[in-house]
Each structure stands twice: as structure tokens, then as C-alpha cells.
């Protein structure tokens, strides 16, 4: 069970891929340093989704795309009762899905 979410920082041009990929989309280099993804940022967009997939017993999920201060964008769960576009948030790691008895850890965002 991972407590850290990783991206890949291209060893050649420094571009961060999140999610990680085999080849850098900027310079086509194939080697990366693993870097931790997270920190503070702002809500780029969000939704309350009621059309849920399997593994959830809640009525809806609040999901967001967050632009972190280092420019990396991520998709995660937004734990905020008063969401707004552009609002400052910071990342935490929590259980984002529980298929069977195997919890999956991922990015969650709370107001700063």
C-alpha cells in the first residue's frame, strides 16, 4: 500500500510526467527520476459525480483537477464542503477506493 504518489522527472529535459510514461512527451528521452507528487495548488475544475462506478457506497464523490504550484496537474478527490474554481488546496494521501478488502491510496485535497 503506497503512501506516496510518484511522477517521473525526465533526466534529460526535466519535464515531469504525471502519470508516469515510458517515453518523455517533451524530448522522447527514456529515463526518469521518480519524484513525489503533491503539495499546494488551486482547483482548476471539479464535479460532484453521482454516476459512480463499483467499489463506492457513498451517494456522490467530489472529484477535481488541481494545478499544483510547481505546474503539475493531478486528478484527485476533493474533501471540501465549499468548492470553488481557483480555490487554494493542499494534498493529503488517503484511501480513494476499496475494491474488496484492498484499500487503494491516492491524492485527496483539502482547503489550505
Amino acid at each position, binding site marked *: 500500500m503506497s503512501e506516496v504518489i510518484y511522477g517521473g522527472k525526465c533526466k534529460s529535459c526535466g519535464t515531469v510526467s504525471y*502519470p508516469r510514461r515510458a517515453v518523455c512527451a517533451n524530448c522522447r528521452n527514456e529515463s526518469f527520476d521518480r519524484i513525489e507528487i503533491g503539495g499546494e495548488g488551486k482547483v482548476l475544475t471539479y464535479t460532484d*459525480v453521482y*454516476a459512480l462506478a463499483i467499489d463506492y457506497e457513498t451517494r456522490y464523490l467530489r472529484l477535481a483537477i488541481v494545478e499544483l504550484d510547481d505546474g503539475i*496537474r493531478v486528478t484527485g478527490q476533493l474533501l471540501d464542503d465549499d468548492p470553488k474554481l481557483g480555490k487554494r488546496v493542499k494534498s493529503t494521501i488517503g484511501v480513494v477506493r476499496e475494491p474488496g478488502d484492498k484499500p487503494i491510496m491516492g491524492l485527496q485535497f483539502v482547503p489550505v
Partner: protein
Amino acid sequence: MKPVYIAGAGMTKFGRAEWSLIRLASEASRSALHHADLGEIPVDGVVVANMGAARVNKQTALGSALVDQLALYPAMAEAVENGPASGASAFKVGCQAIASGMADVVLVTGVERMRTVNGLEGTDFVASLSHPEAEYIYGVTLPSLAGMFARLFMDRFGVERKHLAMVAIKNHENATKNPYAHIQQTVTMEGILTLPEAAVNNPPIAAPLHMFDCCPVSDGAASLVLVSEDVAAKLGGPKVRVAGIGQATDTHAVHEREDPTDLKAVRIASEKAFGMAGATPSDVDVVELHDAFTILEIAESEAAGFFPRGEGHLALERGETALDGKLPINPSGGLKAKGHPVGATGVAQLVELVWQLRGEADERQVQNAKTAYACNFGGFGNNVVATVLRREG
């Protein structure tokens, strides 16, 4: 490349099917083959489009299964899976077989039977196209990607919920003129937006998108018969030529796109299709767009080049995309009201356009349609196929 013509088109009524998956595919195929009226000319190849049968219907190798149903042996056959763009991808594969000279007659059939599983399972099977580590694990589903896209797009371009409702109202109205459409019911602005009971009738699905912004879950099949120039010359009936096909991809995770409101793959695929056709968006008389969510009809109408960026909702408001407007969009009712059996959709869009170009669309006929365009939007915009069809003669 050799020219490719579409000699026949057919489909089943979309909705909740009593038939098996392969019966659906077989009925649509028979209808298209009768429409083409090939006589003694043999079918050389079969391409089936489908997304979920391996998981939802526990059936694979659908190309072989359909050949057997239709007794088309020894025709070559395969199935194509490309998410919600499976239909137009299979069509492209069929066109390539004829354009390369490998085949003279190819049957392309898209089919999906997804109402056999419950809603959660159905939503999950489609959500499996999202990025497994960066999207899916968070509970991302297609409606959630559309909801996040809609909020950003609406904020940036001044699109309001009333504009989304206008798409739904138009497409539901068009679907009442289409006997193959899943939903045969008109909706009103009052009923889905402005009256107090609209909050109950039209609950949120992925805010700001509500139920009437989302396509239904449908079963169904659609089929086309593609032929070479030689075969087309032997057959009677109007000639519909495949003028251009374009396909483009984009990042798997939506958040990685430089501007997440820019449907770049739609733009590039459309430019390629128009380039191949030697045409421009202003030449087009009738359009089928991939309105799995109302916001997508507006956004795609811009990205495909029909309206300037940020002005698709204004053209809609002016009635330009209505059945009697300057550029009718989704005369079939679109995914919104005709329904969205995922693997069948890309083929069904082209079935409608073939009928339109042949003047066979009855009550929803766009007068004198000569050039048609379709956008089949796969993933959440990470794999798009655009097609331009033209009537000859």
C-alpha cells in the same frame, strides 16, 4: 488509395434489447445488406465494432461469430475495440481494406449490449478506459470527466445550463422523428430547468451536468456495407463516397492537456478528414456529433471547425443547428436521444448520414444534403475519428 463507397446502411432500434448480442449484430447487418442489394456479389470481409462484450456479455471473437450467423465464410473477419470510437475505427479498418485493394465488399457492424448488467457495472466498464493509476482509482467515470470539462468550459466561454438544455431539447425533438431512436419523448426548458419540479425531474449526475445532459445506456447495432468503385458501378441506387477520414489521439489522463477545454484530437482529426476530402467545414450540409453529454455537442461543433471557439452555444441559441437551421447537427437525435450502445455509435452516426445523403431520412430529412460530417469521440477525447461523406451524382 482506391475510392470507397457506402452501398448500404441499416440498424436496429436502440434501447433495451431482448435479443442476444450476436442477434443484434446480425439484424443490423441483414438490414444493411438488403439495403445494398448486392445480388451475387460476395462479401469479402467483416469488421465488428464493440467495446464491452468480453466483460459484459462474456463473448469474444465477434467477427467470427457474425460471419457464422450470416454464413459469409470464408470472408476475412475481425473485431475492433477502440473505446467509444470503436465504431468509426472499425469503419476505418473496413475502408482501408477496400482502399488497399484487399477487398471489394466489407460489412462493418457496430454492436453493444450493455443493459444486461446493472448501472454500476455498466458505468464501471466504460470507466475502465480512463487512466488506471491517475484517474480510475479515484472513482473517475465518464460522466465525471464530462462534468469537470463542462464546469471549466462553461466558466471560460459563458455557456449556461440553458444552452445545455437547448441541446437536449433539440436532440430529443429530432429523435421523435427517428423510429430507431431509444428515447421518443420531447423535453421542455420548463420541465428540465426552470420549473421547481425540474430539480426532481432532472437531478445532477456530474454537476454541472444533470440527467438530461447525459445520453441513456442503450443496446443496439448499426451496420454499413462498404464497396469498391467497381462494385459501386454495378449496383443501382445513389452513390455515397467516403471522401475523408481523419483520426487523432491525445493524452490518456485529461489533466495533462495544456488546455483541458481544447478538444485537440477533434480539431486534428477533423482537419485531416477535411484535408483528405478536399473540403472545408463550410461545405458541410449535415452533421452527427458525439453528444454523450450535451456540452460535447457544443465543444465539438467548435473544434471540428463549424463555429469559432467559444461561439458554439451562440450558434445553437440562434437555431443554426436545428433540423431546419443552416447546419443541422444530430438530426438522428444524437447519442443524447437516439441512444449510445457504445461500440455501435460510430457506425450509427454514419448510417444516419448515409440515409441523409441518399434522401431516405423521412421526416428528419435535411433537404438536398450533399456533404456530411461525423465525429466519433473516444476515451474522453483521447482518440477521435472524423469522417466526411459525399453524395456523388
